[in-house]
């Protein structure tokens, strides 16, 4: 049995009329043809052959319950929906048969019956609306659009833009990309300030004679590539030593040799 609660592929035009109308054994055991309990109820209601607003809800509930009972006796699986509806209808039946006691907070049987009637009428109305829609002069069936439309032709023309500069730049970059360059990282000797200070201290020692910085550093200044860093670091270090009062610096004029000597401590003066 297919799942009756999901959409069946039943054709609305072909199938519904084939369902046996007012057949005495409407309870031939088949729920597969119904799209859920509401569909089944609507079908049962139609069999009362009256306006939906005049159907006997009690009779309808009984028919549904007996249908479900038959189906269950035959041990046919039923989707939960059908059983929930059966439970609700049993409740509806009981509410209809027992008069509403004053102060009863539960909904009255009449109200429940009205709800069911409304739902059935609404479903039927939608079915009716669907068939009225389908019977309208539909496009492609009764009404036609232009068979050979002449669509708008849009001619796209693209203008590409580029400047000579962009062109040349692109070329330059391409050519450079292909040039294989070996890159060797350039390492340079750098005298750290701390090292320069230590070396300077050691070289000057206790000499109290004015001597140019270059002379002190003569042995280190052999390699020309080291000259700049050595001089720079030593000079910085010497300034530091002057500030500390350990060294004296003197220069006669701009670019003249930088003379330095150990400062005589005040105590020795």
């Amino acid at each position: 049995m297919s799942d009756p609660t999901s959409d069946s592929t039943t054709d609305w035009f072909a199938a519904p009329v084939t369902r046996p109308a007012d057949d005495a054994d409407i309870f031939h055991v088949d729920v597969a043809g119904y799209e859920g309990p509401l569909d089944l109820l609507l079908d049962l209601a139609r069999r009362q052959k009256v306006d939906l607003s005049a159907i006997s809800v009690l009779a309808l509930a009984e028919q549904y319950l007996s249908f479900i009972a038959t189906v269950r006796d035959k041990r046919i699986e039923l989707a939960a929906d059908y059983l929930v509806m059966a439970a609700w209808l049993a409740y509806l039946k009981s509410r209809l048969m027992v008069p509403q006691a004053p102060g009863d907070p539960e909904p009255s049987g009449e109200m429940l019956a009205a709800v069911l009637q409304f739902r059935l009428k609404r479903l039927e109305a939608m079915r009716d609306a669907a068939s009225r829609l389908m019977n309208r002069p539909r496009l492609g069936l009764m009404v036609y659009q232009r068979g050979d439309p002449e669509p708008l032709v849009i001619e796209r023309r693209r203008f590409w833009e580029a400047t000579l500069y962009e062109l040349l730049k692109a070329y330059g970059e391409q050519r450079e990309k292909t040039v294989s360059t070996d890159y060797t990282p350039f390492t340079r000797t750098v005298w750290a300030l701390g090292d320069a200070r230590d070396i300077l201290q050691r070289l000057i020692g206790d000499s109290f004679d004015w001597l140019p910085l270059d002379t002190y550093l003569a042995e280190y200044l052999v390699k020309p590539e080291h000259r700049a860093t050595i001089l720079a670091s030593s000079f910085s270090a010497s300034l530091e030593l002057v500030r500390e009062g350990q060294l004296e610096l003197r220069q006669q004029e701009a670019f003249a040799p930088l003379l330095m000597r150990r400062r005589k401590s005040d105590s020795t003066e």
Partner: protein
Amino acid sequence: MAIDEDATAIAARNLRVLEALLFASAEPLSIAEMTPFLGDGANPRALLATLTRDYASRGVNLVRRGNGWAFRTAEDLGFLLRREHTEHRALSRAALETLSIIAYHQPATRAEIEEIRGVATGKGTLDLLMEARWVRMRGRRRTPGRPVTYGTTEAFLDHFGLESLADLPGLDELKGAGLLSGRLPPTLQIPLPFDGPLRDDEDPLDPDDTGDGEP
């Protein structure tokens, strides 16, 4: 006098332009789509009214479909032109009911459709209706779960020969009987199908919103 003659000539030309445009297109054209082709100061509505009148008695009529306008063969000639349709697949009952529920109750969520049908609606049914371009996702209802709201399209109006949703068959009776109400029993306020812009309780869809997942 000369100005009047000019005006007449311009109107005549604009009518020809509209005729050509509408004849050339298989799909309805909106006024916004037609306006660029008309001269400055043209009144497209008045021109369309003239064309509608001119063609009213002919074998081809100018009809309005939502915001669009299109030439369609006259309805009364349908039986004559009716062709053999082999590939026209009949819609399943589920699809038909779902379509009519969306049409009459829009904006409608899947839960509302299921409430009326009393059955779960497979996603395939809605997909099929959207594929047929009759149904579209409108937005998301501003309620817990943010369900997608569905509505009909202009192609729906076109296919079923409706100028607007107000032309839905039996709409007034259904309204009178309170059957367009989602609530029970019929409330005082009876909603009417609505395919306009988003309502207060609808959020727009994200650009990449693909609708509800499979339930």
